[in-house]
Structure formats: structure tokens, C-alpha cells
């Protein structure tokens, strides 16, 4: 699993890479939930994700909901147009906070 977790001014930035499918979703889910449960804000950087299937998206959804429960923030960064179309299909663009890049995410205080 190519994923890097960085500490960026007190928040976790999870950098994902490549294709996220049924094989990788369980590990992604665990990583995201672990980050959220540590009580910090989380940003997931998708700029180097070439493909994410709905098991990956479901893991994002679950983490977002957990973050809401623990009143931390959970945002997404740099969603590709292809991923965005899928988000829009299920109206997830209305649910997630999506930032164009890390800079604007930090600027927005996410």
C-alpha cells in the first residue's frame, strides 16, 4: 500500500497513490479510521490517485462520518476530474469538503 502520512501543522495529511480497489480498500479504511480516531483533523491527498473504486470511496465516507462524530475535520485534496464525476454521480461532492490543493486546504484552515 503506497500511502504516506505526514504531520502538517498538527493535522494528518494522508497521501494516496495509484489505484485503490477492492484489494486495497480494507487497508485504506484502517489507516483513515486510525487517523481520525487520534482526534486530529485529516486531509486526504488524492492528487496521485489514478483510480478509486467504490470500496475506496466507501472508506472515505466512513472516515468522514467518524470525523464528524469526533468533531474533527476531514477533507479531500486534489480530486481528479474522473473521480469527481463519480463523486457527483452519488452527490458526494455535496458531502465532502474538497480542496484543489494542499496550499488552499491549509489556507482554508482545514
Amino acid at each position, binding site marked *: 500500500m503506497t500511502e504516506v502520512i505526514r504531520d502538517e501543522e498538527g493535522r494528518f495529511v494522508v497521501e494516496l497513490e495509484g489505484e485503490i480497489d477492492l484489494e486495497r480498500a480494507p487497508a485504506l479504511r484502517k489507516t483513515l479510521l486510525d487517523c481520525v480516531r487520534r482526534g486530529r483533523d485529516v486531509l486526504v491527498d488524492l492528487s496521485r490517485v*489514478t*483510480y478509486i473504486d467504490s470500496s475506496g470511496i466507501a472508506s472515505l465516507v466512513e472516515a468522514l462520518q467518524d470525523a464528524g462524530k469526533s468533531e474533527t475535520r476531514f477533507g479531500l485534496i486534489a480530486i481528479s476530474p474522473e473521480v469527481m*464525476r463519480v463523486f457527483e454521480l452519488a452527490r458526494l461532492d455535496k458531502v465532502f469538503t474538497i480542496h484543489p490543493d494542499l496550499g488552499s486546504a491549509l489556507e482554508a484552515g482545514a
Partner: protein
Amino acid sequence: MTAQASQLTSAQEPAAVSPAAPVIRVEGLQAFYGAQQVLFDVDLTVMPGEIMVVMGGSGSGKSTLLRHLVGLSRPAAGRVELLGLDITRARSMEMLALRRKIGVAFQGGALFSSMNVLDNIMLPLREHARLDRKTMEIMARLKLEVVNLAGADALMPSELSGGMLKRAAVARAIIMDPTLLFFDEPSAGLDPTVSSALDDLILKLREAMNMTMVVVTHELESAFKIADRITILDQGRILLVDDVAGVRRSDNPRIQNLLNRRSEETEVDAQAYLQRLTGETPTPPAATNETPEAS
């Protein structure tokens, strides 16, 4: 739901497929039921992202073709290649991997009446993947959202209308984010408004998920709305493969017949009914030995 520029770059796909290559390639397909030949030398090519509609009169071999396309039936001769894999020769491991990439919404593929909608939709996931229950539930609810059945999770199939059942079947067919989606008569038995909404859903799925689809229908209006190309089957042979404009333009009398189908269809139904009553098998080549519902 999948998201990527081209479905064909996914690591799980056989390397032989490049974006320019067809995702479905059928060559010289022959099919029989017993001694009765129902498909004759069928060739078919479907390109990535394309919606290929298969039309033809009742008994022309549409469902049989579809069953061969998804590997439910073995051809007597010819080859069927999906995503670069010759499924007539594939090993069971290869077929298993391929099945994850294929969504099927067939007429007989009804929901299980003993399970609620959510469990029905999650079923393929339980068979093919090892995921957390919560992940599977969210995936299933996402699909319900996509097919406009949000909130129907806990309903039993018996509580759904005809249109809702079709939508739920579509949700189940796309639960694994298939690259290829096969429909047999998705709008059969639906009233025009509901059927048109189903067409919109098909187009929406292709748009957002880049799926390649083969849709069998005998609803002309629906075919013209969703098709990139139309294959017309006639008594087990391909009569024409062309885009919508080409089909409309055709001066082939059999195709014109299909386009002005109403009167013909009544006749076909009457024959099928008679055969049903008498229990007689038709003499080949048979175009008319099915019940209207199963066409």
C-alpha cells in the same frame, strides 16, 4: 462506482487490451438448443465506452447472444473475447477475475424475495470480495443513491414497484464497479415514463463510470435514445450493425418491419401464444416460439 480516465488502464485488466482495442469481440459464434441452431456466424465488436444495443424480433436470438457474451452458455463454435480474454478457453481462475468486471442485469435475475434491498445489492460483494460489513453497506447505499432508490435499504422486493425493482437490479449489477454492463430488456413491462428514466440512468452510468454496455431491447425509442450503435438480429443472423442514423436510413424491408413493429409484434405474440397452447416446438428457423415476457 469507478473513476479513471480510461477503465482499461486498471491493473486488473489483461495487459493485451489497449484503449483502442475492442472490449468485446465475437467471431463466428454459433449456438444451438439441441438440434435447433439459434445463432449463425455472429460477429460483433464493441469498443470501450460504447453502448451497443441489440434489437430483433422475439426469438431472434438476443438473449442467447447475451448469455454467450457473459459466459453463461458455451458456444458450439466461434470465439467470445471480453477485455482481451477468450472466455471460451479461459481457465476458471481467469473467469473469476473477469466476472468481477462484469455486471449483468438479466430478466431472470430477479432479487431474492427473502432478503431486503440492501442485502440483495451487497450479494455479489460477499461472493467476490473480503470487505468490512460497513464498507459493503456504504457501497450498496451509494449505488441506491445512484439509481434513485435512496432510503429503500430495508424494503423487501415485494414492496417495490416494477420500475424500482429494475433500478435495484441495476444497483446490484454495478455494485462491483464493472467495466462491462449487460442488460436484457431493462424496460420490458415498464410504462413509458419509467422506462425513459431507466434510459437516463443507463446514459448517466456510462457518462460517469465509463462503462461499456450491451443492452438488449425491443423498445425502439429506447434504442434510439441510448445507442451508439445498434446490432439487429434476425432469426439468429446479424442483419445490420450501424449507428442510429444508419438504422433509420436502412431500406432493408426487414429492418423497416422492425421499425414499424407494432403490427408485426401482435402477429408474433399470437403465434407464440398458439405454440404455448399447443405445446408444439416450432420448425427451424424459428422466430416465434417464445412467450412475450421472455422475448
